[in-house]
């Protein structure tokens, strides 16, 4: 356990700059979007204030988020893409270059599954750190909105409304329904493990491994796809479908972890 935590620390420490860059990028892009959209709206309202009843000329923080889909979505898409690529890179960087750190990682006096789990934990830490950072940033952005907008144009909105206003927040990043959150993030965790195992298949069997990895990912995708399409089988009760789905997810997760641990312990070649 102790060495697992040290490995997690090592992985997070090695990638800290990537995380900081993504955070900085998110701050810069979202703030540009927020300031630009807010100022534009304030100017518009100032211009028509004399022509209409000013009681209706108000807008909320949630409205600004809704009107800045591009500015708020872009850093999330960039971060998602970078973290997605990082799922591969976190393994391959230990093989590429003149240092080939894999030689050292795999002769550490600890179970090799700890290396596997530490890399996965680092990815999850990055994802949840970005989500938590986004939530904190939204609070700061709301504060900035309050500063930028004159009180006569400001309409209050609850935080959940602001989250729900952006399609990416609502659909993927921060679904307000807790079950949906569990399913999305559960599938995300499963996808990370599945890709890890696919990478290890390639690292263990090289060219043949690519074929095995593709077949393996297709099998995982097929099983998850089948679980997702259970509702088309009308003769099952919702509770039965939920049990079957959870069962399929657990089987895929179990097979993925067992295969991944075996590959990293017995088959991997540096």
């Amino acid at each position, binding site marked *: 356990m102790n*060495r697992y935590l*040290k490995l997690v620390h*090592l992985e997070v420490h*090695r990638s800290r700059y990537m995380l900081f860059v993504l955070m900085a990028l998110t701050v810069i892009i979202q703030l540009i979007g927020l300031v630009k959209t807010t100022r534009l709206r304030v100017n518009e309202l100032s211009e028509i204030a004399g022509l209409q009843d000013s009681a209706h000329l108000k807008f909320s923080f949630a409205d600004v988020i809704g009107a800045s889909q591009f500015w708020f979505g872009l850093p999330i898409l960039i971060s998602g893409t970078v973290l997605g690529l990082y799922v591969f890179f976190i393994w391959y960087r230990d093989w590429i*270059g*003149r*240092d*080939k*750190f*894999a*030689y*050292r990682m*795999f*002769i*550490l*006096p*600890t*179970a*090799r599954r700890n290396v596997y789990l530490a890399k996965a934990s680092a990815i999850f830490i990055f994802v949840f750190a970005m989500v938590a950072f986004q939530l904190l940033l939204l609070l700061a952005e709301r504060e900035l909105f309050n500063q930028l907008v004159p009180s006569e144009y400001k309409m209050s909105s609850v935080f959940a409304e602001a989250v729900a206003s952006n399609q990416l927040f609502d659909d993927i990043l921060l679904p307000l329904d807790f079950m949906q959150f569990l399913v999305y993030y559960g599938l995300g965790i499963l996808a990370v493990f599945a890709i890890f195992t696919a990478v290890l298949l390639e690292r*263990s069997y*090289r*060219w*043949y491994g690519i074929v095995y990895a593709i077949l393996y990912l297709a099998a995982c995708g097929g099983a998850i796809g089948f679980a997702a399409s259970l509702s088309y089988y009308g003769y099952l009760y919702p509770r039965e479908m939920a049990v079957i789905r959870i069962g399929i997810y657990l089987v895929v997760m179990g097979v993925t972890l067992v295969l991944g641990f075996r590959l990293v312990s*017995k*088959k*991997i*070649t*540096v």
Partner: protein
Amino acid sequence: MMIELEHVCQRYAFKKVLKDVTFTADKGQITCLIGLNGEGKSTLLKAIMGLTPIQGGAIRVDGKPPGRDIYEKVSYIPDHLAIPPSMRLSQAIGFMQDFYSSWNNERANELMRFFKLDINERAGRLSKGTAAKFNLVLGLAQDSAYVIMDEPFAGIDLFSRESIAELFSSDLVGSRGVLLTTHEVGEIEHFIDKAVLLREGTVARSFICEQVRGEEGKSVVDIMKEVLLA
């Protein structure tokens, strides 16, 4: 007390890299694995460390197969410095200290002084020779029973080679078992106790150097030429 390889076979795709390799490297002896390029010397060392699987035979270190139990007992010095380039040497030493209970910090400091290395330097900025020296520090600073070295002299200048060769007769190697591969056999010939000659993926000849010198009046290099160039 030894590293044993029994009928070890390894394939890469359909090509057999190692065919029925059997030999031992005993504790307290320096065993040199000799062969031309591509004969599978590095693969054998990696197999001992469990860094590549074997398809047949058995490898044991003091009776145990490769795995986490042997990593405190056997230190491995690969043919390159396996440390992230952004890491400072002090951080690399801290990393080793964190993970290996067999790590001997005093010995690490002694070796750092011996090689005149700067702990504030980053691994990625080291020259090939300096990286090879630091690689030796990481391997030899462990209180391990065995040391496995893959081409410890590669890329090192003449004077540094001499100082590294000195290590073989010093307390830093002492009573450990050493298994190494090198193309510079001539330079360490007098330190080697046992030579194992690999040819076409199998052991062509294995002998005690002192015995061959006494009985046949031949050096390791003479036998190498006979066996490998035949």
